[in-house]
């Protein structure tokens, strides 16, 4: 029975075009890990790269600062992004993250921080199902799951690359 359900799930994944997330505009890398297939360790870390392509720290900085992308500074202060005004106070300062955290830990925190910090207010950036009254962006309209993840696999790798550069200066 279990085996049968799995086969169906795989079929659905390959057949349904809705499952191609709109944020994944770049080439679809063979190694790309889909949101449902991410493997966490017991502490919530994710060892395997989501794309197999090294992250670009400059793009990661943009993900964190831009209101239109990750908007991480809404909640976190990051000294290295001081050109962007109005950093939030909801989450911890991230200016030393590169010294304190491993790539695997950061990947887990970005994909779904609730696996690392139980009940945290930080959103899950690579999760597509299991929401209550999900909406289509900020339109007030209902949305059908699976939703596009908040960040693409490569944007997450880029953000990790940037976070790893954050050291006490």
């Amino acid at each position, binding site marked *: 029975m279990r085996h049968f359900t799995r086969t169906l799930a795989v079929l659905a994944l390959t057949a349904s075009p809705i499952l191609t997330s709109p944020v994944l505009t770049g080439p679809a890398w063979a190694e790309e890990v889909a949101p449902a297939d991410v493997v966490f360790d017991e502490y919530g870390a994710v060892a395997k790269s989501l794309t197999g392509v090294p992250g670009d720290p400059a793009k990661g900085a943009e993900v964190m600062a831009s*209101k239109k992308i990750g*908007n991480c*500074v*809404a*909640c976190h202060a990051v000294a290295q992004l001081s050109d962007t*005004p*109005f*950093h*939030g*106070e*909801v989450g911890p300062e991230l200016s030393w993250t590169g010294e304190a955290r491993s790539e695997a830990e950061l990947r887990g925190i970005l994909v779904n921080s609730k696996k690392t910090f139980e009940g945290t*207010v930080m*959103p*899950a950036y690579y999760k597509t199902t299991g*929401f*209550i*009254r*999900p*909406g289509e*962006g*900020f*339109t*007030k*309209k*209902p*949305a059908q799951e699976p*939703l596009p993840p*908040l960040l693409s696999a490569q944007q997450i790798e880029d953000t990790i690359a940037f976070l790893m550069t954050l050291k006490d200066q």
Partner: protein
Amino acid sequence: GALAIAATPLFADEEADLVLNGETEMVVRTAAPDHLSDTLDEIYSGWVFRNDDTQVMQADDFDNPGMIFVDQAMEAWAAADGSEGKSCASCHDGPESMAGVRASYPKWNADAGEVRTLWMQINDCRENQMGAEPWKITGGDMAAMEALISVQSRGMPVNVAIDGPAAETWEKGKEIYYTRYGQLELSCANCHEENYGNYIRADHLSQGQINGFPTYRLKNAKLNSVQARFEGCIRDTRAEPFKPGSDEFIALELYVASRGNGLSVEGPSVRN
């Protein structure tokens, strides 16, 4: 220098006291009501978290832009409307007769067998007493009339009953308050209970109290109603909000109002 000046408007004096028109002392911080004792020690009006200029604007009725709408509602109060040819004044005399009303709403109405918000009661009078069209719940006419009625209770403590027949609705509102909606998976409590006093980008988070409603917002230069604010906050979690006037939002309004029991009625307040 220029930087310091540019930064000033963001500054909020969380210790400031609000004395209305130099005479009425308003309670903007007080001990949390018993039903919140597990989570909060003190409750604060949203006024506490606004910047100095906005705080000052609300302290004097001549500077409070929301008072223009109160004047407009005075006219509506006396204007006959609907098939019965009656105005609010025909049955309620002057608006002063509404003293204390804002402080106790939403409230159980035994005849109707329902929890009634102030806007529900106003529309009930319009439809069933005046034979007039109901006003849009989040519209300008309604917000102005709510402001006029609110002014009659300014300075009185919010005192919303949560027991007896209202208890069931209150529980439902509480459940909604703690539910994490939308793709961002955030509840009212995540922002307004766990993070009040913190900045979320440029916004200084308050406790999300509704003692100041309707609020005049500098951002959109009009009076804003409770139900529209709830809708906006849930939308911002990338969720499909409940509709203004829905059972869910009526329950939430009762619950959120009760979290402010003890704060002064402030409406119309000034917010950014």
